[in-house]
């Protein structure tokens, strides 16, 4: 697959280089991403507003909009494709103000979020919606780190290897 996806991006070590990415480029991500979707974003935003400590350092972080299926026996995670990014738009500018640098999801972003991503030198990557079994095969470690009561909407720290995505907003 390396011939199809030439560019490698390591997280968080390549964060300084995300400004060099170009729209439409395919990248293969490796490293640390944190899953968060609707309810986790609501809590992260509330924690920021209330000056509470966040469950993971947002500065330079990568968030993957994803709510995995439960892991089958002997597996570390279940199927884990991207969810619709637009539902996180309401919270995204606040998270960008607090250091978020990489977002991975599917679909379009609002004009406000697009502008905020550019202003903060961040990047939005599109993963392939519905390719959840393929993305499962790129996950090397999975650790539940916050909001276990949210079930699939909890925050998981994932280590991925050669996770394909396309640069969509930079």
């Amino acid at each position, binding site marked *: 697959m390396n011939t*199809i996806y030439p560019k490698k991006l390591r997280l968080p070590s390549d964060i300084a280089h995300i400004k060099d990415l170009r729209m*439409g480029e*395919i990248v293969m991500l490796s490293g640390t991403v944190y899953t968060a979707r609707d*309810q986790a974003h609501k809590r992260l935003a509330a924690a920021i507003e209330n000056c509470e400590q966040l469950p993971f350092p947002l500065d330079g972080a990568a968030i993957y909009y*994803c*709510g*995995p*299926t*439960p892991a*089958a026996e002997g597996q570390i995670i*279940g*199927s*884990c*494709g991207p*969810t*619709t990014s*637009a539902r996180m738009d309401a919270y995204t500018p606040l998270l960008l103000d607090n250091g978020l640098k990489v977002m991975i999801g*599917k*679909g*379009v972003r609002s004009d406000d979020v697009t502008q905020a991503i550019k202003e903060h030198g961040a990047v939005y990557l*599109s993963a*392939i*919606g*519905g*390719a*959840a*079994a*393929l993305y*499962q*095969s790129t996950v090397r470690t999975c650790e539940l780190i916050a909001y276990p009561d949210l*079930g*699939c909407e909890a925050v998981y720290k994932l280590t991925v290897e050669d996770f*394909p995505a*396309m640069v969509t907003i930079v």
Partner: protein
Amino acid sequence: MKQVDAAVVQRELTRLITDCLIIPDKAVTKALTEIRTDSEIERTAAAIIVENNIIAERERLYCCQDTGQALFFVKLGDEVVCQGLTDAINGAVHDAYKTARKSVADPLTRKNTDDNTPAIIEYTLTRGDALEITFLAKGAGSENMSRLYMLTPADGEQGIIDSVVDAVKKGGKNACPPLIVGVGIGGVTETACSLSKRALLRPVGQNSERADVAALEKETLKRVNALGIGVAALGGNLTALAVNIETAPTHIGMLPVAVNLQCHSLRHGSVKF
């Protein structure tokens, strides 16, 4: 009166749900395998989805992490009895979703029901002694992008085509294309919505038996694919695999048009008792 044991229904449905959630409609995978496009990115996206579906089947993984809300279309003959049928259907959802994602919550508190129940069930009473149950898993990504247009009779066929194109233009990029576009025309509001959902169940590539409806489907599909959204919304010419239209007679003063978008993870199946 034919008797059907609800425990058998629950067991068979549990198996059907699990298989459907792992292996999406093979007609979609075939169409993606045979894609003809000038766009390298679209070919790559199609290849990723095909590979995903192969991995899912081989490893017995859910093809999409959004295992959806569980919908059932039940045809119940008037010469068959199945005591506790609704409980059996909900029991099958409870059992099958033990290993799948629990995606159903209270709309206000957002508290999860923890077993993906309640199922959404539409019963149709028919003649005879057949009981047929069709399952469809519907994820939020595509369902959220569905719309209802209350047109006037004067809007006519052009209004219908424009409405479908509008729905795909506004929501298609978020709905995991290539799409199956279900269109329900006629009846009252809920008739149109129900028809648009049932339209998704038709075999991919099979047009309506009504010649005028089939022509409308072909014309609308052409317009939808001209939007250039493409596979995985990364740009290209395969935005939708099919536009399926179902109709019902409506009021002389109305023209309801419901558009239901279905992602490429088309997960459905039927069982007869």
